[in-house]
């Protein structure tokens, strides 16, 4: 799995035919999202001020990208994301989702990740950060994981290996036994003796 490539100034991006769904209960904030996305060249933008309105839109239309505020009264952007991933129509279930939020304690970021969002973007929204996340999402080669508890992009995008003492569940996880020490670690003197040959008197 490779990480996202850097966005170059000369890189071209074509969002003209991409259908964007924007959701925020704050109308002014929704306008900011919409202006930024329109500036990127997007022609098809649907704006909703609640998760319920967004759900109704998603039931009738196929969208390509969901940008939703996290904290909305009643049903939050996290709930909407969870609904899309678990109960949304098949045509929209695996769409890229970016959650935007003004307040980003670690617990909120984890919540967004665990409900199946691709990325979290901190407000205030800036064109550069949003375009970068769209760009990353377009190149994202993470597999989707679908099970009762979770549906969304693979959350394990950092290669830290399986938890210590377990075999790991990925087909390409290395065996837990591989790399186990066969004998005690070498002392620094042993290492020096190997790596730093010294002149000896004959």
């Amino acid at each position, binding site marked *: 799995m490779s990480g996202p490539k850097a966005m170059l100034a000369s890189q071209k991006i074509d969002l003209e035919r991409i259908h964007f769904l924007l959701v925020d209960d704050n109308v002014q*904030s929704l306008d900011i999202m919409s202006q*930024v996305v329109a500036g*990127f060249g997007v022609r098809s933008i649907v704006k909703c001020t609640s998760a319920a309105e967004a759900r109704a839109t998603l039931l009738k239309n196929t969208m390509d990208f969901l940008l939703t505020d996290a*904290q909305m009264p009643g049903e939050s952007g996290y709930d909407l994301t969870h609904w899309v991933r678990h109960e949304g129509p098949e045509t929209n279930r695996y769409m890229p989702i970016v959650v935007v939020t*003004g307040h980003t304690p670690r617990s909120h970021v984890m919540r967004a990740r665990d409900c199946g969002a691709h990325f979290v973007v901190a407000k*205030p929204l800036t064109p550069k950060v949003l375009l970068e996340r769209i760009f990353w999402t*377009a190149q994202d080669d993470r597999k989707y994981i679908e099970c009762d508890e979770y549906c969304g992009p693979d959350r394990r995008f950092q290669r830290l290996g399986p938890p210590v003492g377990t075999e790991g569940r990925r087909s390409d996880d290395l065996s837990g036994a591989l790399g186990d020490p066969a004998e005690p670690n070498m002392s620094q003197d042993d290492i020096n003796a190997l790596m730093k040959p010294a002149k000896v008197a004959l």
Partner: protein
Amino acid sequence: MSQVRKFKVHSRLSRLALGRGGVTVVEALQQASAALEEIRPPCIAMVDECLAEIDQRFGPMAPNRANEPLADLYSLSSCIIDVSGALPNSGMDQAANALCELVDLTISSERVGWVAFDVHIRALHLLRSHGASLSEERRRAVISGLREVVVKRFGPVEAA
């Protein structure tokens, strides 16, 4: 454990966005910034409306602030963050973020301390009036002062 399915999804975004057409990143960013400029005045007006409502309901002179729901203060400061991009380099977003943090911790701990709120509200006013003209160092000092108020009251706060 439930059945786990792993699969690749080739989104329309991936197929269409990174082809040869479209605009360059520089052009896209310039167009977006120009589009944002058009809605700057209403965004600034919203910051001022939120600040006025915070003063009226939660400020030091608000007669009934102890009975006002703190969740509303969270919403107001969150709203300031939403539109504070219209006031770049003012520190408003960070001060409003610190206020959100304070409200969040206050609600979960049920320990209301109005002095800490007053400090945050005064900082918001200071940054609204002079934030953009302050040096980066002084602006940072104001924000770190707010963080210290929160830490002093509730201990170290989890970072994203």
